[in-house]
């Protein structure tokens, strides 16, 4: 219950405070969100599998976001930013989809 409350608080804070993001960070926000989604879906699935671990979740979340943004940043420096973002989105998208399917199987037994 507390985690879901945390999520709601975060969303409300973001919408209400409207913090300004430095310009250099803005291109990495969408990819960071996709990475965060992957970590969150992974966590939910692990919970359904009964193997959820807070430490693993927190570390995987932070590292996912940082690494995804870093890969895209590196790609931008090398001139292949768009392609690398696509690669990151494809890989994370497949994982999100797979985890969502596993969650669905747990929820609906189908």
């Amino acid at each position, binding site marked *: 219950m*507390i*985690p*879901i*409350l*945390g*999520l*709601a*608080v*975060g*969303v*409300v*804070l*973001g*919408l209400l405070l*409207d*913090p300004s*993001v430095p310009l250099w960070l*803005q291109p990495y*926000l*969408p990819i*960071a*969100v996709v990475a*965060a*989604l992957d*970590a*969150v879906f*992974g*966590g939910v*699935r*692990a919970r359904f*599998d*009964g*193997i*959820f*671990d*807070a*430490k*693993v*979740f*927190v*570390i*995987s*979340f*932070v590292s996912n*976001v940082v690494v995804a943004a870093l890969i895209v940043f590196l790609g931008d420096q090398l001139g292949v930013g768009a392609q690398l973002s696509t690669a990151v989105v494809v*890989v994370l998208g*497949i*994982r999100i*989809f*797979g*985890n969502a*399917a*596993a969650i669905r199987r747990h929820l609906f037994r189908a």
Partner: protein
Amino acid sequence: MSARPPGQQRSLGASLLDQVLAETLDPAYAQAAEAKAARAAARAGTPAPPRPWFRRHRGQLLVALTLALAGLLGSVTYREAAAGAQGREQAREALREDIGQESDTNDELVAQLEALTAEVTRTREDALARSAVGQLALEQLADAEQGAAVLPVSGPGLRVTLGNAPPAADSDPVGGSAEVAEPGIVQDGDLQLAVNALWAAGAEAISIDGQRVGATTAIRQAGQAILVDFRPVSSPYEVLAVGEPDDLARSFLASSAAGTLAQFTIDYGVVFDFAREDDLDLPAGTAAELRSAVPLAEPADTTPDPPTDGG
């Protein structure tokens, strides 16, 4: 699609894609669960030591904090994207408004110009009609105006259509732009070729997409657009030529320009069509700027024609 148990080595032949597809859950969860189970087994029998509330809920609080971070990240990104889209929409709206306003102003000015030109013509005709020499000048002026394409013309003639090559059947209209391949685009030179060939074939008057082409009218390219008399025209370009349709068609088709354009059709898929028309209406062109003028000759002096500049 469950996580593979830790310790079991994936075969070396497994492809990267296989791994991506099969391993959707972080293996660290399984490892942590196993470690926890091992700890619990080692502690089996002894009761769990009492822990303070904070210690017991530390994991949950951490997860809540992380999720709050995730929510913040998501909402901030959403705000950024929405703000960007809104800004773009606003800029586009402002530009659209500007275009509309300037077009209105332009139309107004054109109408004003037409009214004033008509008034000038009327006044000039009134003034010239009063004297014999003036009447003579008026006739010459009418001839000159005919030649300078400042009078509307109608009559039978030829309709020549030039157009960009249609997009290939296998081109993807979704996502990509509907741009035609570069070689299939009609250039200003192609239009000039057609117009010059029509002049040579005996056309009396020519217009392109409703823009009258006179002796000094420019057909030129500015970026992607073709300008006729400095007004943009777009594909398909409809070249109307007034003249004796049969003669015009025969001479035009015999010209090398028609051959070149036909070759373009074969090579690049450029649209090139022509048809005889019984009734064509060509609008008046813009009058050329008056650069020189001479006073009318004295009534007694009738032999030499006073040189008049058309328009």
